[in-house]
């Protein structure tokens, strides 16, 4: 089984590292869910 830690990783084109990109996506998800929740509360 290949060891992932040994694999060379290319940096993303923005935000420096993939870890930063993933954190950005997580924050985006939180904003989306919060927005959808507020949308529901506002109009239900």
């Amino acid at each position, binding site marked *: *089984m*290949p060891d*992932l830690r040994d*694999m060379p*990783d*290319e*940096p*993303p*084109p923005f935000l420096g590292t*993939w870890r930063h*990109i*993933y954190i950005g*996506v*997580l924050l*985006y*998800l939180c904003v*989306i*869910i919060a927005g*959808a*929740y507020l*949308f*529901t509360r*506002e*109009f*239900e």
Partner: protein
Amino acid sequence: MRPLDWIVLVTALVSIVLYGLYRGRGSNTVDRYLLAGKSMPWYAMGLSIMATQASAVTFISTTGQSYVDGMRFVQAYFGLPLAMIVICSTVVPLFHKARVYTAYEYLERRFDSKTRTLASVIFLCQRGISAGLTLYAPAIVLSVILGWPERTTTILMGTLVITYTVLGGIKAVTWSDVQQMGIIFLGLVVSLITVIVLMPASVSFGDAVFLAGKAGRLNAVTTHFDWNDRFNIWSGLIGSTFLFLSYFGCDQSQVQRYLTGRSIAQSRLGLLFNAVAKIPMQFFILFIGAMVFVFYLFVQPPVLFQRAELSRIERVGAFQPVAEQYSRAFEDRRQAALALVEAHHARDSAAEERRIAEYRAAQKEIDGARTQAVKLVESTGGEKGFSDTNYIFLSFVTRHLPAGVVGLIIAVIFAAAMSASSGEINSLATVTVVDLYRRYVRRAASDHHYLAASRWATLFWGVYAVTFAGWGKRLGSLIVAVNVVGSLFYGSLLGCFVLALGFKRVGGTATFIGMLAGEVAIFSAFLFTGMSYLWYNVIGCSVVVATALAITYLAPGATATTPGMRQPV
């Protein structure tokens, strides 16, 4: 269909096919035919992934789902970004590094041939059924618009898709998907603008949103927990994460998309683009369905949206009182909706409450009349479990949208169906040739031979999809049916890959037995409980992992992998 609609439809379809063939030229080796020579940029992969996942079902069925059940279906996509992060950080570099054609090819390197074969067969069963559903969706379109039998249109669509896929390979499929998504986005925007413009002059956009909310159609997030409730935030975050992990990590129709990337970074960016864009897109489509519902508060919809069945029961004597009850209830609901808007403008809370009660009473009458109509369909030789959810948006499009726009919307549906179906057939052919034919039948033939085998396999799966397409009409909402079918198989595949990546001591036999146990558990949940399908993936994956671990640690001698079975392909 008016002449302008035909012109738009034919022009769009011809341009899509020609563009796909143009971009797919030069697919004359197995590597180019199945993986586009690993040359794809991230945006093409991202849009292709979205197009394959969306298909015509998204347009037809999601709007209908919102019409009858509100927007809470969007929660089924909350797990997508989580799954994309896991996929990007684990299997994307692994598959690229292993230089495999299929996800299951890797399983033989990690476990043994029987585990790879079982995973391949599970994929072929599941994706074969889904390919039929993907072809069935546009057949509904033509049956509604032109009155053609669904069988005829399925064969017609299948023939187009098979020809296109056999000639173009994955490069043609991917680039045509990019074009599809552009047309889909255009169609979505035009649909929303049109439905808002068609509202009565006295109802503003704000009023329409207000009414949709009061009618329970803007329930994007529901926080209560219920195992049997298909869509709530918990099943969305937990269940759908497992579903998308399975779909993007173990389903060759998606894996093959990001294997065409020119680098690991390009593949990751393609998947993350999908993670960011998918939820807003689903939200937008569901919102269109909610607006169509509001439109039909003021314009009487047909008792049933499927024209053929409606025409049939209209000739039955018992239909007349049902139609009268429906018309009376519609008028009551229309008056209640208008009065509710007035009360809202006047900021009169007490009046609002009264109007809402009136609205709900009228809605109950309408639901009752529709239930009676469905019973008439079933009692007069129609289909048992009849559902017209998939016909709602199409009925709205054909009855109320202007010339040209109808053609555009139908072109979107056709084009999306063709690209999604061709992608599925392409991946089915890849697994058939790489994981079964090349593994068990001809192990050392020429590249030309495997290219020819891939084209023949594509033809076979195209015919299979056409044959299976008729099953789709028995499954109610197509968008849900596609996900249910996937969830019956994905959990076991996901468990297998979790074991491959996370548990070094687990061998092939333990994994193989675990996968069989996982399938038994999933089908038991499906057949004997009312549990939401989103949980099947969690159950299946958990049972596979638990069973394999138990076997590995409790009976290590019994599951030792046979020497020589771990031969690389």
